[in-house]
């Protein structure tokens, strides 16, 4: 199996895990979890320099899931990568679980930052990137932003900070699926043009199809090669990607599938040709 096929296989397994986790918890955010799977898969299984048996290794690449409601996607990825047993995934959201509803770095091995309150992740990633520069470390910092959270003012404060301090060891990836709780971004409060906005703030910007592994790969490499400024990868994605009845449906932002829907979703994912 070549690299791309392998990544596709892993992404499919992560999507299956997400559906099962959220179904069992009867709680969670399937739409935005499924949309960022291909990005997380590429980062953890191809790009990031990490040691699952030593999660706090100080030279590791770091990731901040600013859109913290996509926690199931990150948990499934971390488990697949070997940070903890995949059996633990079924404890999502349950009392005493190491898998909290939103990422809690004190609970889950491999989490670099506690997130969930939208708009804060980019600032945290900036702090990590600043520390990397200060200590002359070679690690890179990745932050996954949601499109809705660009409506938070702090994102723009942080965008200025990253450009001001020339954080070229930082890559932000926007999981741009176009939908938020109350509807499409453009109807709730338009965030466009994202590309021009970030460019005006001093960033290098790349736009890709966030489900095309070749494009994700190329964009991350381009970000690594970009010096003197941070890079934003605008990844155009599909909310609920991989499950036909969830795709591009606002209603699947924050509701769990029932048993029938779960079976249907699993069937579809398993049937998808990888």
């Amino acid at each position: 199996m070549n690299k791309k096929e392998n990544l596709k296989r892993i992404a499919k397994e992560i999507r299956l895990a997400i559906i099962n986790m959220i179904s069992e918890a009867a709680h969670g955010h399937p739409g935005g979890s499924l949309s960022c799977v291909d990005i997380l898969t590429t980062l953890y299984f191809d790009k990031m320099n990490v040691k699952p048996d030593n999660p706090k290794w100080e030279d590791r690449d770091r990731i901040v899931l600013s859109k913290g409601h996509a926690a199931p996607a990150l948990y499934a990825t971390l488990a697949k990568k070997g940070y903890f047993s995949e059996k633990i995934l079924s404890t999502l959201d349950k009392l005493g679980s190491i898998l909290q509803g939103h990422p809690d770095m004190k609970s889950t091995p491999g989490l670099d930052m506690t997130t969930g309150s939208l708009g804060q992740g980019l600032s945290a990633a900036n702090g990590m990137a600043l520390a990397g520069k200060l200590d002359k470390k070679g690690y890179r910092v990745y932050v996954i932003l949601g499109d809705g959270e660009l409506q938070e003012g702090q994102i723009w404060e942080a965008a200025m900070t990253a450009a001001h301090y020339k954080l070229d060891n930082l890559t932000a990836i926007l999981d741009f699926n176009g939908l938020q709780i109350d509807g499409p971004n453009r109807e709730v409060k338009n965030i466009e043009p994202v590309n021009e906005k970030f460019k005006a703030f001093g960033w290098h910007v790349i736009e890709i199809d966030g489900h095309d592994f070749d494009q994700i790969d190329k964009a991350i490499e381009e970000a690594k090669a970009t010096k003197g400024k941070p890079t934003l990868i605008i990844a155009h994605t599909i909310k609920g990607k991989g499950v036909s009845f969830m795709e591009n449906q606002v209603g699947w932002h924050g509701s769990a599938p029932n048993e029938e829907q779960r079976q249907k979703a699993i069937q579809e994912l398993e049937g998808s040709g990888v």
Partner: protein
Amino acid sequence: MAMATREAYGKALVELGAKNKDVVVLDADLSKSTKTADFQKVYPDRFFNMGISEQDMMVTAAGLATCGKIPFASTFAIFATGRAYEQVRNSIGYPHLNVKIAATHAGITVGEDGATHQSIEDISLMRGIPGMVVINPADAEETRQAIFAAAEHYGPVYIRLGRMAVPDIHDQNYKFELGKGEVIREGKDVAIIATGIMVAIAIEAADKLKEEGIEATVVNIHTIKPIDKDLIVEVAKKTGKVITAEEHNIIGGLGSAVAEVLSEEYPVKIKRIGIKDQFGQSGSPKELLKYYGLTAEGIVKNSKAILKIS
């Protein structure tokens, strides 16, 4: 000598920066007022001006802390605790990150800028965050030692500092201990439990009371959280009457913290001196202290009232 605790903070940071290379300082465009400019001059590489964006500053500090840095995030108390409250709660408090929040210009004595700049709820907000240590030093030497103690303590710490000069109470022989109160004066009739700039005023009040034959115990509670329960109970047992004095709303600050301890452990009569649940206004610091009754005379009046002496 008199020095503002913010001045002492600036000097302490420079001293700390030499000892501990992990210390980094962030400011939100107020470095000349918060005195972090002193640190910037000596350690420009370890100083980050975040501009006027306190929310971003707090979470950037959190990110730095995840990488082993000891960030001192500095701005006026109203912005540190009010503007950036949820950032402090969710990105510093909840993950229990090693960030020190140094908040200057606290209380009404920021003065002329008026109510928008006078933080009278900051202690309340910060002590409500699980795991947050809250320190309110009384003078320059206590500030210096508190800054060192904060750097040594792993976890989030809120340090409340003031704009105006306050008299020296402590010298270099003083030993600051996190979480412990300090008995400054012993007396059997009434206990005056004070914090921050009110400690010097409480001492002055005790002198005045003595002239009238009333013996007051004066306690300095520099660490409001975790609070020194044992000492508070001890002085309450000894005097049976307690006055609290703080430059903060009487709701949620030292007075509330002492009342919480005593109501559970040893109920006695308490009178809380502070801002009586109202917003401040413009004025000189001295005028404001007088207007809101945060004076030695105010403490004397309340002490007599609690002793039922007119």
